[in-house]
């Protein structure tokens, strides 16, 4: 009985050729997700634009003031940078572990641990995305009811870079979600056989 369960453990946790193929595809997806979240972090962190605007006119002379738009001025964007930074660090760490760490003994829990961390990081990245996208919408359209003016007409490059970072972050989030679902399916695909064998029910 012990030998049979060990065989099943091996087949669940990646020694057949089909499982290795799936592993490689997941690795590729994770690489793309890492690139997406890392680029989102970097583009938003370097987002800065200085513009000189006319604030008043005295007689015939316009008075200009130099204003800077930075990502640190908005707490939502700061959270966005931090969340995407953590997501890209997580992706990088898992990539390194999968490529290099074949000798580490996980006691068969490798897929489960990765899936759990993936779920947590996906939730964090989604929170960062949600806050940033609505702040960007506020900057783009303003809010006439609260008398908040839009800022995108004066700081076009800032807004463009911000939208680029947001799109990259959403792509990273989607890929992370797909990876997580694939891993869950891998776990449950093997676990269903175990469940029928042991008669597990709750």
């Amino acid at each position, binding site marked *: 009985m012990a030998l049979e*369960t*060990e065989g099943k*453990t091996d087949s669940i946790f990646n020694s057949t050729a089909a499982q290795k193929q799936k592993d490689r595809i997941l690795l590729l997806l994770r690489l793309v997700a890492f690139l997406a979240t890392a680029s989102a972090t970097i583009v938003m962190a370097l987002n800065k634009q200085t513009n000189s605007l006319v604030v008043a006119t005295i007689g015939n002379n316009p008075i200009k003031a130099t*204003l800077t*738009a*930075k990502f640190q*001025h*908005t*707490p*939502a964007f700061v*959270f966005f940078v931090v969340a995407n930074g953590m997501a890209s660090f997580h992706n990088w760490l898992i990539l390194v572990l999968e490529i290099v760490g074949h000798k580490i003994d996980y*006691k*068969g*829990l490798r897929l*489960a641990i990765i*899936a*759990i961390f993936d*779920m947590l990081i*996906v*939730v*964090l990245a*989604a*929170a*960062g*995305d*949600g*806050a*940033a*996208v*609505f*702040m960007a*919408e*506020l*900057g783009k359209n303003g*809010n006439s*009811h*609260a*008398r*908040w*003016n839009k*800022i995108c007409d004066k700081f076009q490059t800032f807004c463009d870079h911000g939208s680029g970072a947001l799109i990259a972050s959403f792509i990273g989030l989607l890929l992370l*979600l797909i990876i*997580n*679902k694939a891993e*869950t399916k891998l*776990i*449950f695909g093997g*676990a269903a056989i*175990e*469940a029928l064998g*042991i008669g*597990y*029910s*709750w």
Partner: protein
Amino acid sequence: MAKTKRLCTLLCRLMALGATVSAAIVMATSHEKANFFSVSFEAKYSHTPAFKYFVIANAIVSVYGVLVLFLPSESLLWRLVVALDVVFTLLLTSSISAALAIAQVGRQGNSYAGWLPICGQVPNYCGHVKGALIAGFIGVILYALLLLYSIHSFLDPLLLRKN
């Protein structure tokens, strides 16, 4: 033991359902009119896309919560519940994050963008929104706990048995 676990999960899901339903309702009924230097100020949740998203997300998760409560305990659909739990926790977290970001601008303004805070003019509206956000936060925490519990109950027993 299984019975108490089942009862605890049920209780947790009921509380989470209550939190999301109350968050949606409190946010949807927030409304205040004020006069400020002969300028009429009206604050409603529908003026802000972030608050609309908050109401819609909490409503969707409430419907999901009601449906899950009616699931019989031995059905195979519980594995789908684990997957769906992740998606709906995601939705809730992003909605509360967005609403918090906009509420923070409303309370403190943003001097760099020239946005003045509005909570001085409509304090009742601000208090109402704060209550809705607190209920939403409780919902998020409860759903995160439920997610961790479903992960534990599905992955742990199967793997512990091997050792």
